[in-house]
């Protein structure tokens, strides 16, 4: 997927003016936050679970090579194959090779952010293979030729009426008079349309929420059950997953599962938690004949041991964006690549380069709400600041900004000079603003006065007044 993060400002202005989007975001925000709160409040051990989930991932990341190798051995032992992919291109090619080997024309797909990251759909289409998204949200945005705006709610930016319109446009063989006014009827129709696709597909592709080293199992959690059909009905199942998804044991996976759904949607657990280990064994009633895992690195191993290491704990629950005031304001598409919100602001520069995505870690108030809800206790603001440091070191921020900052720092590092300068300018500014107490506009303060007034300084600086008080005290006056 093309990186359009450099246009963050333009895109966010457009998003702010989009009333439909703003309504959709408002609704989603209230829903996610309230539901998570309730789920967390109902589980007294939630905080303890967060800590243990974090510890599990920290341990795994410290021994990532060992666990990945163990995982690979188990996959092979259960009859599957592992394809290591260093880059997005490698991963796409691996998937294509498998599809070609079995003569696949159609593939069904469960919801997967990794396949968005490697832009698999475009690649398959270019190679004459038709990918069919089976998650309702993904299906909708595929119809619209869009990308997900949220990592767990890809179509979060849309409302029901827009979806109805799309369905009437695309499903044009169905009776025009049918009722599509309810979310349930939309879901029902999508199911009807998708059912035959599962049988037509030669290959089913899913992502993975966890890869279990102990057993060689991949686990997905879904609410629609489409993932199960995707991976059990076609002849071939391909799991596309990134390397940090591995955990040591099933027990570890189930611990993290306890914080995942609660943080994401406020459910105690998702409707379906599906485990798959290898292809169908003799005597199994169902399952694929071939089982492949494409293990993607795509820059992750180079995050290990850096100040962005902890980002690899992320379990893609979406809580950080669900609680982010900036995400709420502009929605996911403004971020300009696959991963939006606070986790995207840290991950995108790691994966596509900070020179293309510098706005993302800068567009944060550092309010810290993301970190406070992140089930994996990832210090997102701190890592956004690290990106700002990298930018600063490389001189990537605009010249005017650097100049302003340099000037300010010159004075801030010289207290005497600073006091002299402020004791001259502040009383003058205060005098200028005395009549109303406010400035509606002020040279060099356009960023501020575009949307709000600036209160005039009260009077002389505190330091000036304090000195007077001290002097009065010494002269025997009353403080």
């Amino acid at each position, binding site marked *: 997927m093309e990186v359009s993060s450099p246009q963050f400002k333009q895109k966010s202005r457009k998003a702010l003016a989009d009333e439909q989007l703003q309504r959709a975001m408002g609704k989603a925000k209230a829903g996610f936050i309230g539901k998570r709160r309730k789920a967390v409040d109902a589980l007294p051990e939630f905080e303890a679970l967060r800590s243990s989930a974090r510890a599990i991932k920290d341990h795994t990341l410290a021994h990532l090579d060992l666990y990945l190798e163990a995982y690979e051995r188990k996959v092979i032992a259960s009859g599957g194959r592992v394809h290591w992919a260093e880059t997005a291109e490698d991963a796409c090619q691996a998937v294509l090779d498998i599809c070609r080997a079995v003569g696949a024309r159609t593939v069904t797909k469960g919801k997967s952010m990794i396949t968005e990251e490697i832009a698999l759909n475009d690649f398959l289409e270019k190679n004459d293979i038709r990918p069919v998204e089976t998650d309702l949200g993904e299906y909708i945005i595929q119809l619209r030729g869009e990308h997900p705006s949220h990592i767990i709610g890809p179509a979060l930016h849309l409302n029901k009426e827009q979806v109805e319109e799309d369905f009437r446009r695309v499903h044009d063989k169905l009776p025009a008079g049918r009722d599509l006014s309810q979310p349930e009827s939309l879901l029902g129709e999508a199911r009807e349309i998708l059912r035959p696709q599962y049988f037509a597909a030669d290959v089913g592709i899913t992502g993975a929420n966890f890869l279990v080293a102990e057993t060689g199992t991949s686990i997905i959690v879904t609410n629609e059950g489409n993932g199960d059909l995707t991976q059990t009905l076609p002849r071939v199942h391909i799991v596309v997953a990134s390397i940090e998804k591995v955990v040591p044991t099933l027990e570890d996976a189930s611990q993290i599962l306890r914080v995942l759904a609660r943080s994401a949607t406020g459910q105690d657990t998702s409707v379906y938690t599906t485990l798959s280990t290898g292809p169908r064994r003799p005597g199994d009633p169902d399952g694929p004949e071939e089982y492949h895992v494409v293990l993607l690195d795509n820059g992750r191993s180079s995050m290990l041991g850096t100040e962005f290491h902890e980002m690899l704990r992320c379990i893609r629950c979406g809580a950080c964006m669900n609680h982010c005031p900036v995400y709420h304001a502009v929605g996911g598409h403004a971020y300009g690549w696959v991963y939006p919100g606070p986790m995207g602001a840290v991950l995108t520069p790691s994966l596509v380069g900070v020179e293309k995505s510098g706005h993302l870690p800068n567009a944060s108030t550092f309010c810290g709400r993301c970190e406070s809800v992140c089930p994996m206790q990832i210090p997102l603001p701190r890592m956004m600041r690290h990106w700002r440091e990298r930018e*600063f070191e490389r001189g990537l*921020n605009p010249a005017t900004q650097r100049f302003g900052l340099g000037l300010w720092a010159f004075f801030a590092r010289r207290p005497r000079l600073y006091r002299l300068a402020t004791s001259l300018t502040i009383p003058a500014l205060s005098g200028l603003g005395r009549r109303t107490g406010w400035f509606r506009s002020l040279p060099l303060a356009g960023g501020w006065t575009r949307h709000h007034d600036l209160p005039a300084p009260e009077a002389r600086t505190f330091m000036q007044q304090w000195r007077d008080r001290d002097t009065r005290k010494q002269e025997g006056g009353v403080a």
Partner: protein
Amino acid sequence: MKEDTRKAPRVGLFVTCLVDLFRPTVGFAAVKLMEEAGCAVEVPMAQTCCGQPAYNSGDRADAAAIARQVIEAFEDYDYVVAPSGSCAGMLKKHYPALLRGGAWESRAEAFSGKVHELVGFLVDVLGVTAVPAAHRGSVTYHDSCSGLRELNIQAQPRRLLATVEGLDLKEMENADVCCGFGGTFCVKYPDISNKIVEEKTACIAAAGAETLLAGDLGCLMNMAGKLHRQGSAIKVRHVAEILAGMDDTPAIGGGGR
């Protein structure tokens, strides 16, 4: 002030740049509150700003230089107190991170242990349970992000406000949600910041209080500036002003004295 037989704790007031330049009243309110609670308050002249503009812009070198300057000026006090959760958080939580691994590491750690946000200091350290202030009218309180999430300032201001005679606290919805200030964020991304502060002022207006309070001047100026642009009559003050009984001074933007 009554003489105490115990030695009064020596407090270095970190005024913060915004209070120094825009609203000295907050500094005097802080001094009054701490002196009334038995502290000897001093204001070292070698202070300018906590360094957040540099730190949050990725300029570590300047931020570290300012951190060393602040530590040098304040490390001999028993306590270092700032009327701002954001600046106190910078001094307490971020200076040690900034100076880790160098000659200043242990000094930064020791310094960090002395730093407090004003209202947290009054309640948690000095054990103040009530203030002798009065304020006729209703107020609503916004929890500024750094104070709330870095320093756990939430119950303390409400506890003291509850003891102000005549004061009626009307909680707003989403009091703990960011106001959109974010330091340089609000001038770098003014349109996004504006959207966030509009949501905030809507919650403030819906609370139906006459006065908005918070513990951070940056957020207060942001919200006050928006309320004024919107033509709202809601007054805006730092919480210390009300706790110190200094509500006779004009509110933020109310003109000079």
